[in-house]
């Protein structure tokens, strides 16, 4: 099933997603500054908004250098993979009734699959750089994203059980009376944490830990290839925020305002929350990250799934 205007939807989603992620560079810098009692970029244009343009000009005109010791084809393809996988995931996000590129009936699985594929980008980038810091970053990314994906999927199964469908539009419609954040609060918290880890944001940014690994998997990248990782990261947090809005906060549902506005407000609130996390929390140690994932989050997700299943069966 596709939307009535597939091409228009594709172009619209592409434009909105990409410009939002560019705009996020400015938002993040301004918000971090706000929480650190600074101003941030406020000189270029009104409120520093044209900083985005300045940053883009800078990153497009930078020297695009491939180190001689890198595995060239893999090195080039790695940043493209993350962009492609994240942008593909945006295809199934229902922004408003009728505004969705592809209304897949297994939409949720598609997102999870794409986020698994996105790991390849990081791992290949780390491997192809031919640099031990990058390789360590790639290894960390592989371990982190695989272990956090497990309970990311499990934490969503509660939502699927309640809604009875993998289709994201169906999940939004199932929240007509009650947003899933209330019956699935634990699942919401688990998905939020897993989402931060999947998007490799602080406090889970171990693959690119500046303090230990220079810049992790993208140490050797420059110019627009680095820019693609950058945009990929921002697209990633936008995707996770949209997923939270769709799965737990009723997507476009909301009084008075038009559906698109409600959706964007919810997404933006979570984007700000991601940035707040970056402003406030220190990076975890790697063993802490692993034990948090496997010893706390994973059992909690399983328990959440079991209890939800039991309740759903008992209610029938």
């Amino acid at each position, binding site marked *: 099933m596709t939307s009535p205007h597939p091409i228009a939807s594709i172009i619209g989603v592409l434009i909105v997603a990409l410009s939002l992620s560019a705009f996020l560079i400015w938002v993040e810098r301004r918000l971090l500054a706000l929480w650190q*009692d600074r101003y941030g970029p406020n000189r270029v244009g009104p409120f520093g908004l044209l900083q985005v343009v300045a940053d883009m000009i800078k990153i497009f005109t930078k020297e695009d250098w491939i180190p001689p010791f890198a595995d060239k084809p893999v090195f080039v393809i790695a940043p493209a993979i993350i962009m492609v996988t994240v942008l593909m995931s945006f295809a199934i996000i229902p922004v408003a009734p009728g505004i969705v590129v592809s209304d897949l009936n297994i939409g949720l699985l598609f997102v999870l699959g794409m986020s698994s594929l996105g790991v390849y980008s990081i791992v290949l980038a780390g491997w192809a750089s031919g640099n031990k810091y990058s390789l360590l970053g790639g290894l960390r990314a592989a371990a982190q994203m695989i272990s956090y994906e497990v309970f990311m999927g499990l934490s969503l199964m509660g939502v699927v059980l309640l809604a009875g469908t993998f289709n994201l539009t169906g999940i939004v419609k199932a929240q007509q009376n009650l947003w899933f954040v209330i019956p699935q609060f634990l699942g919401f918290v688990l998905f939020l944490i897993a989402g931060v880890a999947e998007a490799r944001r602080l406090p889970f940014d171990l693959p690119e830990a500046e303090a230990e690994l220079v810049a992790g998997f993208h140490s050797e990248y420059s110019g627009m290839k680095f820019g693609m990782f950058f945009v990929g990261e921002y697209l990633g947090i936008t995707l996770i925020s949209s997923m939270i809005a769709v799965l737990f906060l009723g997507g476009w549902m909301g009084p008075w305002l038009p559906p698109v506005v409600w959706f964007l407000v919810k997404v933006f609130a979570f984007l700000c929350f991601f940035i707040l996390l970056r*402003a*406030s929390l220190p990076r975890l140690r790697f063993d802490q990250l692993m034990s948090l994932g496997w010893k706390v989050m994973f059992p909690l997700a399983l328990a959440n799934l079991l209890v939800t299943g039991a309740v759903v069966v008992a209610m029938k």
Partner: protein
Amino acid sequence: MLSVIRTIWNVFLHTFHRRVTIQYPDKKSYMPPRSRHRIILSRDPDGGERCVACHLCSAVCPVDCIALQAKEDENGRRYPEFFRINFSRCIFCGFCEDACPTYAIQLTPDFEMAEYNRQNLVYEKEDLLIDGPGKYPGYNFWRVSGVQIGGKDKGEAENEAPPTDVHRLMP
């Protein structure tokens, strides 16, 4: 877990805090009068150069950024023939000011001296000399020192007794 949430909340509360940044080109921060920035050469209250070209400042300068050459005028007053400070090397340590016996060289609170061309950071004597006494008004080295120059013989300085006439100093 609770501490994590408290941390996030406390950081969020910074939304309502006053920002500490001083937006520099629009607003300027207060510079204390004794802060050490652009170096000047001052003049004594009579308008003469204070610098006596003793080379102490260039000797004490840890980065060797001061160059000068001494000369004497017709009255026997020493003065620098040229006096050159290379501000691209200067570290604004203030040692030259401490070393100066005549309060000639002084550091001022003006720090806005950035240049696009490094060569423009080399200041000559005419760039350094100011028209006033700087931080020490009323001090005139040649008036208080016992050294003899044209127009001021021995014993004519302020608070200076006339020299003892050794021919009258009989036992």
